């Protein structure tokens, strides 16, 4: 058994029909006033629906706006990359130039000081002569000792052997 309020609400929403509608309208003291009230209620319902939909759109925009502002503020808060001369291409070019200079310097220095050339800090043999008549098969070679005291050795082979008496002081 529906109460009057339930029937009234159903009538306002247009959900009563048939004998139930006829009986309810017959029970109303002033049908014209009730009809006016029903129209007002329907208008209010339409208005609220409209407003609620608009409100929902508005919220969406509001959140979008909030997000944009947050992104913008985050971007501003992040330390901005300072402008520098050392850009990546310049770094690459600088590295390549330094490497090229190193190679050129190394080549020049190696050209000036050949591996076989004697260092100025070592004793240098400029020339050597052995009497070819007395020592026809004599040969001469020059090398440096591998020890720490950097001895330069003039090595002769094929010199005439002398008797032991020549070792006298």
């Amino acid at each position, binding site marked *: 058994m529906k109460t009057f309020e339930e029937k009234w609400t159903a009538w306002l929403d247009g959900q009563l029909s048939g004998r139930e509608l006829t009986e309810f309208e017959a029970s109303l003291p002033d049908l014209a006033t009730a009809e006016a009230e029903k129209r007002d209620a329907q208008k209010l319902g339409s208005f609220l629906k409209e407003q609620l939909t608009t409100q929902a759109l508005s919220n969406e925009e509001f959140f979008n706006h909030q997000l944009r502002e947050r992104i913008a503020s985050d971007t501003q808060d992040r330390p901005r990359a300072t402008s520098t001369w050392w850009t990546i291409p310049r770094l690459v070019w600088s590295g390549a130039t330094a490497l090229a200079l190193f190679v050129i310097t190394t080549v020049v220095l190696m050209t000036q000081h050949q591996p076989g050339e004697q260092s100025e800090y070592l004793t240098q043999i*400029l*020339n*050597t002569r052995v009497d070819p008549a007395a020592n026809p098969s004599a040969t001469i070679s020059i090398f440096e000792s591998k020890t720490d005291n950097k001895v330069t050795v*003039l090595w002769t082979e094929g010199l005439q052997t002398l008797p032991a008496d*020549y070792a006298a002081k």
Partner: protein
Amino acid sequence: MFLILALSAVSADAAQAVWSGLVIAENVPQPAPIPPELTGLEQTLKDLFGYNQFEVIGQSNKTLKTGDEDWLANSKYFALHVDARGENDSGYSLNLTLYKEKDVLLETDANLSKSSPLVIKGPQVGSGQLLLVLVVKDDELAHRRRHAEPANPITTAWQRLRRAIHNVIP
């Protein structure tokens, strides 16, 4: 200031001596101790020539003042004539002549470095080997003076600078 530095550098350089020795190297059952002049070269000489005894049969210790001196290291039959022909940045320019009595056995021109001794393998003598050894040494008096007075850092720096400039502009 420049003149003082230059003079002090020259005097420091000039206080050096060249030790020249005629050495007989041989293998004996009981080798004598190596002469003090060859102490620093003992292992090198043994490694190079394979002998266990080194005996000095003639020597000379010449202090060089101008770098143009000449001298003789004599034994009974051999003579090593050393003719110094000037000093350069790394040592002395020398002409060496080895005589056997009056015959020239060997002649050589060398730049003797202050940091690099010269050893010349001479003829075989009996069972041994004649060696000629030349070493640049600090003059003893100058050596003592340098130890008594620590090196002047300005002079040292000047010598280093002079050497560096000489290396860049030969």
